[in-house]
């Protein structure tokens, strides 16, 4: 079994950074809810609070790593223009998708949308990490901020899932 350099980098982008990020959402949701629920909330020790703070920061870093690797390493391969007269477009995914009316939509929806909405995940997750680092358990006293943290986390998850599904089908 052989894997090219491009395939390896794409795997790192999607299956390492991306998949690890998606898996981490469950833990963040549970931790944020447990700490910031307005009744019967969990009061973590300092080390537990720091652990969750680092956890959320690492989530944001994973999102940034996935997005930056995707935009500046993998996306150029995707959108590469073939030399004039090229008949085999397998090495030029964007052109390959656009060459057939049946698959052109996968470029429009699968890639053109994904390449933009992907950036909202690291931005929103950075905000969530900041909110928890700054407020910690005080989030339970700021219900709108707590709700914003939950919504931002959930939105990051949705965008991550969309990215994965859209990329998978576009391929």
């Amino acid at each position: 079994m052989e894997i090219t350099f491009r395939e390896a980098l794409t795997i790192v982008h999607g299956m390492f950074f991306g998949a690890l990020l998606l898996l981490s959402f469950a833990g963040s949701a549970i931790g944020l809810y447990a700490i910031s629920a307005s009744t019967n909330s969990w009061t973590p020790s300092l080390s537990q609070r720091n652990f969750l703070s680092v956890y959320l920061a690492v989530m944001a870093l994973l999102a940034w790593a996935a997005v930056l690797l995707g935009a500046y390493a993998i996306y150029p391969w995707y959108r590469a223009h073939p030399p004039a007269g090229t008949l085999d477009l397998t090495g030029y995914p964007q052109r390959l998708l656009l060459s057939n009316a049946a698959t052109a939509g996968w470029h429009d929806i699968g890639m053109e949308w994904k390449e933009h909405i992907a950036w909202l995940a690291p931005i929103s997750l950075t905000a969530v990490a900041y909110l928890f680092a700054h407020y910690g358990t005080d989030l339970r006293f700021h219900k709108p901020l707590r709700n914003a943290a939950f919504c931002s986390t959930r939105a990051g998850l949705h965008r991550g899932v969309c990215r994965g599904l859209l990329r998978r089908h576009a391929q």
Partner: protein
Amino acid sequence: MGDNSAPMRVSGPGAAAVLAAAIAGFALGVLALAADAIPALARILNFWNLTGPLSGVTDIAIIAWFVSWFALSRRWVGRNPNLQRVNLAAALLLVGGLLLTFPPVMDLLQDK
């Protein structure tokens, strides 16, 4: 550390972070649509040729994020802004940004 007494920190910094993230999302949508609709702008936003206009769209959206976060933090330092209004504005901006990046909506707005 938090306890069951009154909140220890004002909500201003948090509100700034939330709204700034939403502003970044909306800026991303506006720039994506503009780059798609105006070829000359797309060329200007082509900060790195291999990535194309996406490089400029996202770089400027991130700059807008940082600038708005800094400005809002300065404005709301030590204050408790109306978080309901902040969250509503943030939600509208984020939804707007998402819609503006959605290709069928982009095509609809450009009458394609």
